[in-house]
């Protein structure tokens, strides 16, 4: 493993295929090895990322306000929201599980949205964090993304499991739909964000929007 004197592929006129990692001269339309379309950087990365993040923010509102599930017990119906579920778990004394759900359903999605907005903003502005720290922040965000689906899975499992006639039934609520939407849209936003843009700024050139 030799660092070729801090030289980037772009500065050598090379683009890396996103599918097979082959290095080809910038301007090649399709990868000669795997046939995928070639781009030096993700096309319109920042614009698409921001559009997806805004969509996620909008979906995040009903995800928290609407009930994620209903419990019908002996004729009475109880609706619970995501936060309500965490409160219930604390009351039941399951602090570790309450913490898991709080982290997965509240901290990760909101933290992820904030982190991604910050990363997009930092590409064009002066940032306090070094490119390496921002890359680490990006990779953490990317890694955490799917763990937010826990709450949706919990609803799916409880709905499938708990249906005891008129005694006890659990039904899903629309927050499950909007919350699953938040998770998927932020995962796509993370995929669309091209972290190489963070580093391109070091070479003092804003040519990255070209393919």
């Amino acid at each position, binding site marked *: 493993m030799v660092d070729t004197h801090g030289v*980037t592929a772009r500065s050598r006129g090379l683009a890396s295929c996103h599918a097979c990692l082959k290095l080809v001269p910038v301007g090649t339309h399709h990868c000669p090895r*795997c046939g995928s379309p070639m781009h030096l950087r993700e096309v319109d990365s920042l614009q698409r990322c921001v559009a997806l993040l805004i969509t996620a923010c909008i979906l995040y509102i009903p995800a928290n306000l609407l009930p994620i599930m209903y419990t019908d017990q002996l004729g009475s119906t109880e609706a619970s929201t995501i936060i309500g579920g965490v409160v219930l778990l604390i009351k*039941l004394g399951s602090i570790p599980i309450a913490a898991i759900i709080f982290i997965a359903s509240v901290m990760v999605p909101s933290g992820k949205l904030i982190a991604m907005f910050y990363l997009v903003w930092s590409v064009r502005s002066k940032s306090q964090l070094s490119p390496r720290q921002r*890359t680490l922040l990006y990779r953490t965000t990317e890694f955490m993304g799917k763990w937010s689906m826990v709450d949706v899975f919990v609803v*799916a499992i409880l709905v*499938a499991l708990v249906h005891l006639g008129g005694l006890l039934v659990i*039904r*899903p609520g629309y927050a499950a739909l909007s919350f699953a939407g938040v998770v998927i849209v932020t995962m796509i936003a993370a995929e669309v964000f091209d972290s190489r843009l963070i580093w391109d700024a070091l070479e003092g050139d804003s040519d990255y929007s070209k393919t």
Partner: protein
Amino acid sequence: MNESEPGSIACHACDLLVEVSSLKTGQSAICPRCGHFLTAKRQDAHSKVLSYSLAALVALLVAISFPFLSFSSGGLESVMTLPQTPRMIWEYGLPAVAIMVAAFIILIPAATLLMLLFLCLPLHFGRWAPWIKTMGRWVFHLQNWAMVEVFIIGVIVSLVKIAKMATVSLGLSFWGYVAFSILFTLAIAALDRYQVWTEIEALETTHG
């Protein structure tokens, strides 16, 4: 314009060119500038991928065929199987959620495993197959959308949530799914994008 650099990788996270041709079996390379994982050269990578994938598919068959969890209260019992998880959500009027759940916990992981088999079987036997490149392009992307380990955590959280309401017991399929998630993770971890594509390229050259 420069020629391509055969033994180098451009770090996907920061674009630094890193020479990896001197990498020996058992070693892995990390970007010296940003710390991003680049590639790992493993011994018997194909046979590992093949055996883990096959075993994972068997475990998945077990996981979808038997009771997953059962729940009983006041003399009544309800039993849940894995395919029912998306189906019940569908019946309650949330088909989009049902499709996502089915995709993330069953369909995408299963498709990933099949693709791993179709990719690594020809590579293992050194035979060319017309679908190799398609598999190689898709499998690394698809695997990001498998959420098997997240689902396991979901099961554990669900158990805690309803433990006070009634008696819950774990079925054979639950253990099948736990085995599946471990084997799936091992199969994915054994496959390296850079090494696989280097092998595909070599195979294509000898194939003519």
